[in-house]
């Protein structure tokens, strides 16, 4: 399949799912009436529902999905390991810890960008820890370091939420562990979009470097790739993308695992071509999941992480099965 036809196909599916997401909700409204209210509906209730509730939710599904798919593909390219996924190796959990600290200390209330910045910092520490512990240690070291980092970050997140004076904070643990896009608004879009865009640019531009890296570090260096700069770009790009996505949607795992896994055969295993396709595919997957959670249990905020784990865990097990015997 050519790159262009793959992108066109994914793009068309994305647009169709975006519209389907706009038409999904507890209130049964005729599609044409709903779309008309979105475009022309004034301050009426249906106009409000379409513009202030469903539109930001659909936009965030695209942004969160694209950033998670992209950072999964980039991390896998950098570590040359198909298991390297932000959720699985604890980067999302570290980002959630940063976000929770910003919220509970009141930092996020004093200035809006504190929330994504703190999540970015959490993710950055997470990526750095993973690279330091398992950068050259193979799959086993990577997964074990990820388990430890996830457990530590999740425990600290629970601790911070339990210490909160707010009676509902402890129940938020489920949100931060499983992720949800319910009741998101344009405030969340405005917080996340700049960081997701910044991270996206850094990651897509490192495609050529990741391509060269498939031949090994020495070969890449001899081709004029600055490996330090490449690593820095992927680390910062992943931290910005995962941090911003987690700050607004909680931990949505497995997107960066499933999407590259499905798309890799279609792009001839080339990291440079995988990156944009993984961004589109991630957006498609999260849109599907976010429509499904609303169809399965209307109005009850089933968490995205539940569906993603149902899809992602079998893929993960399959990868482990195929890597048996490898170091």
């Amino acid at each position, binding site marked *: 399949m050519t790159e262009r036809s793959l992108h066109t196909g994914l793009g068309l599916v994305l647009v169709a799912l975006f519209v389907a997401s706009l038409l999904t*909700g*507890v*209130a049964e409204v005729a599609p044409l009436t709903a779309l008309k209210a979105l475009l022309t509906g004034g*301050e009426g*209730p*249906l106009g*409000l*529902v379409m513009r*202030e*509730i*469903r539109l930001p939710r659909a936009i965030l599904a695209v942004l969160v999905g694209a950033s998670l798919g992209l950072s999964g593909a980039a991390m896998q390219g950098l570590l040359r390991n198909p298991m390297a996924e932000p959720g699985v190796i604890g980067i999302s959990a570290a980002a959630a810890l940063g976000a929770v600290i910003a*919220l*509970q200390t*009141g930092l*996020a*209330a004093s200035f809006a960008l504190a929330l994504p910045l703190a999540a970015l910092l959490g993710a950055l520490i997470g990526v750095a820890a993973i690279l330091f512990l398992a950068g050259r240690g193979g799959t086993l070291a990577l997964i074990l370091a990820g388990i430890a980092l996830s457990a530590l970050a999740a425990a600290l997140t629970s601790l911070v939420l339990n210490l*909160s*004076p*707010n*009676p*509902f*904070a402890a*129940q*938020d643990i489920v*949100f*931060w562990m499983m992720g949800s896009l319910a*009741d998101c*608004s*344009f*405030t969340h879009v405005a917080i996340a979009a700049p960081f997701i865009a910044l991270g996206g640019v850094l990651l897509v531009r490192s495609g050529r470097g990741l391509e060269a890296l498939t031949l090994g570090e020495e070969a890449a260096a001899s081709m004029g790739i600055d490996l330090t700069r490449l690593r820095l770009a992927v680390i910062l790009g992943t931290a910005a993308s995962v941090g911003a996505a987690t700050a607004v949607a909680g931990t949505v795992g497995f997107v960066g695992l499933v999407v590259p896994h499905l798309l890799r055969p279609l792009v001839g295993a080339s990291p440079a071509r995988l990156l944009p396709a993984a961004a589109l595919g991630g957006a498609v997957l999260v849109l599907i999941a976010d429509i499904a959670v609303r169809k399965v249990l*209307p*109005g*009850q905020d089933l968490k995205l992480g539940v569906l993603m784990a149902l899809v992602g865990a079998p893929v993960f097990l399959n990868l482990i099965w195929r890597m048996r015997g490898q170091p």
Partner: protein
Amino acid sequence: MRLALLCGLLLCLAPALPVAAAPARVVSINLCTDQLAMMLAAPGQLVSITHLARDPAASVMAEAAKAWPTNRGQAEEVYLLHPDLVLAGRYTAQPTVAMLRRLGIPVAVFEPADSFADMQADIARMGALLGREPEAAAMAGAFAARLARIRAANLPGRRPLAATWSARGYMSGHESLAGEILTTAGFDTLAARMGRAQGSTLPLEALVLADPDLVVIGRIGPGSSRAEEPLTHPALRALTGHRAAVEDRDWICGLPSVLDATDRLKDMK
């Protein structure tokens, strides 16, 4: 002479009898029984209330509560207070209640008040339990009189639509104290219109589409929580109706002060 002595004895005994029947050391382990007992108990009769009674967000008697020692509702600490009556709520930790009963301590369990009628029954029951029937009757009488005045002042006419909406999209049902307060204040409730007798979750979308004239939101607590974030959602702010914050403390317990909330809501019509 002997007759006189007997009379004297009886006279002594007569007032002493009900006092002997009333519990002397009462411990409350529920926020709502705390406040009702604080209002009705004889001096020195109530020996401990929960720490929640001192929390101004949850209790209308936070200031007065400083006069009593507090507990955290653990069976161990309650037992060591040697109570002869423990007051608990239906949703007080059941293992605590069971353990206290096993230890031979009488526990009176109060259901949450779902209506003004429940409230009046609770006041009478608390009076009977504490041996303070006259005080309870006076309290119930004053409440009934004030309620009648509010109902009489309610002119017939348009009844605007009101809904309560709090963290996690929780809306109280129409067969609840909040429902009766809103109805008495002159509103129709969204819960009644949707046929929801019990409290339930209402998605933000459904609330916005119902477009109520008044949304009573809970006050947002200290710190921060994702559960309360929808209360500041732009779509909720953009609704054409009013928004009002009734403090949780005003109506979580069936206390006579719920009529203060009723009065304030009536003024928002």
